[in-house]
């Protein structure tokens, strides 16, 4: 009867029939890589790096929502805490960027493990609220904790030298470092979705008790995907901290959690490439509307409403329908 | 149509013509047509997936997409929202029972508003289904499968609707209860209720119905009077694939 449609239109995740990456996905990945490579010579690298970081963040989030069927409304917690950790490691301990980022990612993964193991005890909307509440907790912690620099955040983080060799100071150098990280992240996510593990996730989302009766330890699967998602979100956050040489409360505030949901929704949740598009659109929008103040939030709100009402499959989802191919 | 519905149109309570129904894209009903006279008990027989449940849903107006003509009590209902159809005097007991977990058994029983006089009283319902009386205060879905079935039937007997649509009311019921239901249906018939029954349990159907319509792939392919059942038994077995 009512309310049967799963959060994600299942059509988009039909497994690629017993094959590896279907040709058109391969093509898209290559296309993206190409874009990524020429990008900085056309557009402002810092701006592109911002898009890249958020793209990864959105994809990580989508892994949980679109493919795990779990709507986390507190993903800023992992994004933000990772950015704090990597910023601190790079500034206070003078770690190399790659190490700082790894550390941040690990921190996020750990946090994901702790919060995840609690949050998965509730489903659906409750899950969303629980994650949101935990994120708020992280926010308050970040405000008070001495090492986060409270409201000032951690400023002037050194970009440092990759492996102690390559200077990441110049925007272009840094850019390619970031591109590598983000692209790697995307490939990982893609593989997760199209793995036996991914199949089980789909089943669990469809009918939990049945999965249990088949002998699957459902919660462990949920936790696993939660931690994976948190870690990848952390990877994005940690990278962002190095790029902007700054970690601040914005990264852990609930509006950030909202933004990532928006990006995913707009791009097309449950699609592989949707979040990329969503992130690009939102970041660009924020960039050009910065002068309009409160209108930024209003417009974001409007996009939310419109996407939910008329545009649930998101840009890429619609495209996928039109091409009759999962994207 | 090669099978003649009811020849004489007198006392027609429900008359379905060229009824089509869809679930999303999939076209499930392909021109269902049959008639029910006032005070009659007819069954819809057919294999799994033939479209019996869907037919009932379409009549009740809860099938999202439907076309054709459903005339109830001389009134075209195909366009009406289900609440209007219910008010007109049709009641539906779904296959999956539809007991409300957030309501106590009593609240479940009392939920459907009376649309006409002449429904059973609560005590009469308890008389039919003693189990319910004992568990009045417990949560509706905490009842056993069968108890839920009783509740689902019991509650629509109260409303005093003229036409009852029962989808596999005996499913998962113990033989004793099945017999009770049989008697109940007989009694309801005597009290002037009209009943459309979807059944898998063909013996049960035979014991209560006046006529049987056979549904196959969204069409009514045959109509058999209960008293002519013996002659047609082989045909029927063929239809049901026994």
């Amino acid at each position, binding site marked *: 009867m009512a309310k049967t449609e799963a959060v994600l239109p299942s059509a988009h995740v039909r497994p690629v029939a017993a094959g590896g990456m279907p040709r058109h996905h391969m093509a898209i990945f290559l296309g993206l890589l190409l874009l990524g490579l020429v990008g900085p010579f056309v557009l402002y690298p810092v701006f592109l790096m911002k898009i890249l970081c958020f793209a990864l963040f959105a994809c990580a989030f989508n892994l949980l929502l679109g493919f795990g069927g779990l709507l986390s409304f507190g993903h800023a917690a992992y994004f933000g805490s990772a950015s704090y950790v990597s910023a601190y490691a790079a500034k206070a301990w003078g770690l190399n960027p790659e190490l700082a980022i790894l550390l941040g990612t690990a921190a996020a993964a750990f946090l994901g493990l702790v919060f995840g193991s609690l949050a998965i005890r509730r489903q659906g909307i409750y899950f969303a609220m629980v994650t949101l509440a935990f994120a708020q907790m992280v926010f308050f912690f970040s405000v008070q904790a001495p090492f986060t620099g409270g409201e000032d955040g951690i400023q002037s983080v050194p970009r440092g030298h990759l492996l102690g060799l390559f200077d990441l100071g110049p925007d272009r150098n840094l850019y390619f470092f970031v591109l590598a990280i983000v692209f790697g992240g995307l490939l990982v996510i893609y593989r997760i979705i199209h793995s036996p593990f991914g199949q089980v996730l789909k089943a669990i989302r469809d009918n939990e008790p049945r999965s249990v009766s088949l002998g699957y330890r459902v919660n462990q699967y949920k936790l696993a995907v939660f931690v994976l998602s948190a870690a990848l979100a952390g990877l994005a956050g940690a990278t962002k901290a190095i790029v902007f040489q700054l970690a601040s409360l914005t990264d852990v505030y609930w509006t950030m959690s909202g933004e990532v949901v928006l990006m995913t929704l707009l791009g097309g949740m449950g699609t592989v490439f949707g979040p990329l598009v969503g992130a690009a659109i939102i970041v660009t929008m924020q960039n050009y509307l910065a002068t309009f103040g409160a209108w930024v939030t209003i417009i974001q709100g409007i996009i939310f409403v419109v996407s939910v009402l008329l545009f649930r499959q998101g840009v890429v989802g619609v495209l996928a329908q039109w091409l009759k191919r999962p994207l | 149509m090669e099978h003649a519905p009811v020849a004489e149109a007198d006392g027609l309570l429900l008359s379905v013509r060229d009824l089509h129904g869809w679930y999303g894209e999939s076209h499930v009903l392909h021109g269902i047509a049959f008639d029910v006279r006032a005070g009659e008990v007819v069954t819809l027989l057919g294999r799994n997936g033939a479209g019996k449940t869907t037919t009932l849903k379409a009549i009740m107006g809860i099938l999202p997409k439907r076309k054709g003509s459903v005339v109830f009590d001389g009134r075209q209902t195909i366009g009406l929202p289900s609440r209007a159809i219910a008010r007109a005097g049709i009641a539906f007991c779904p296959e999956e029972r539809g007991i409300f977990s957030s309501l106590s058994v009593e609240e479940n029983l009392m939920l459907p508003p009376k649309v006409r006089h002449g429904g059973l009283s609560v005590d009469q319902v308890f008389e039919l289904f003693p189990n319910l009386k004992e568990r009045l205060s417990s949560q509706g879905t905490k009842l*056993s499968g069968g108890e839920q079935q009783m509740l689902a039937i019991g509650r629509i007997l109260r409303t005093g609707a003229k036409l009852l649509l029962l989808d*596999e009311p005996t499913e998962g019921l113990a033989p004793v209860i099945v017999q009770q239901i049989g008697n109940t249906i007989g009694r309801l018939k005597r009290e002037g209720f009209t009943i459309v029954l979807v059944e898998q349990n063909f013996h049960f159907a035979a014991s209560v119905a006046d006529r049987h319509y056979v549904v196959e792939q969204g069409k009514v392919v045959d109509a058999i009077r209960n008293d002519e059942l013996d002659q047609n038994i082989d045909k029927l077995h063929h239809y049901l694939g026994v």
Partner: protein
Amino acid sequence: MNNDIILSAHSLSKEFKGFIAVDSVDLDIRRGSIHALIGPNGAGKTTCFNLLTKFLQPTQGTITFNGRDITRMSPADIARLGLVRSFQISAVFPHLTALENVRIALQRQRGDSFDFWRSERVLSAFDDRAAALLDDVGLSRFTAVAAGELPYGRKRALEIATTLALEPEMLLLDEPMAGMAQEDVERISALIRRIAANRTILMVEHNLSVVASLSHHITVLARGKILAEGDYAAVSKNPDVIEAYIGAGHA
């Protein structure tokens, strides 16, 4: 108890806030037998099921499976031991195709699939087996159909196929025939008989003809207590059973 008892419950009870649904029931199920659990509605059959498969915690009593105490185990672990159940209200994965439904079960043979780094290509290894199972329950025409769109009866069939895919040592079927057309009933009975060859089956069923033809041993529950035990002939003669369950019509 001797070792040809595969599953045994001792003084099993379940109480729901004051209401005793199952009242110190003793069950011994012989290996390789088809054991039917019958009884009037609300007798406690499904509750028994849920207790045996640990979907409910017994208020008291012990359950041993293959001589091993499973009273405190989790449902998933029970399933891993080879004690698998079906549901009274049908349970499939609506958005997966029939084939994928079965495959999910087959996948269990690989143990836990936490291997998110591997490609799902490894799963296509199971396709043939899955197809075969679907064929067994007469769903070969529906392999590519999303389970949610199958009619009720087919869903039940699919559910059984999925359950079988686990190659369970013991099967618990809650009203496998409910809502099935005659033809399916026949097929499923045949299937059950076939699979029972090397398995133990405990089933709840109201369709007496099925019970009569299939089961070696019958336990009759009423109001949470055991009313009678024995084979069909014996049980169906038992006056209490007739009075409480079968009713005059059938006797």
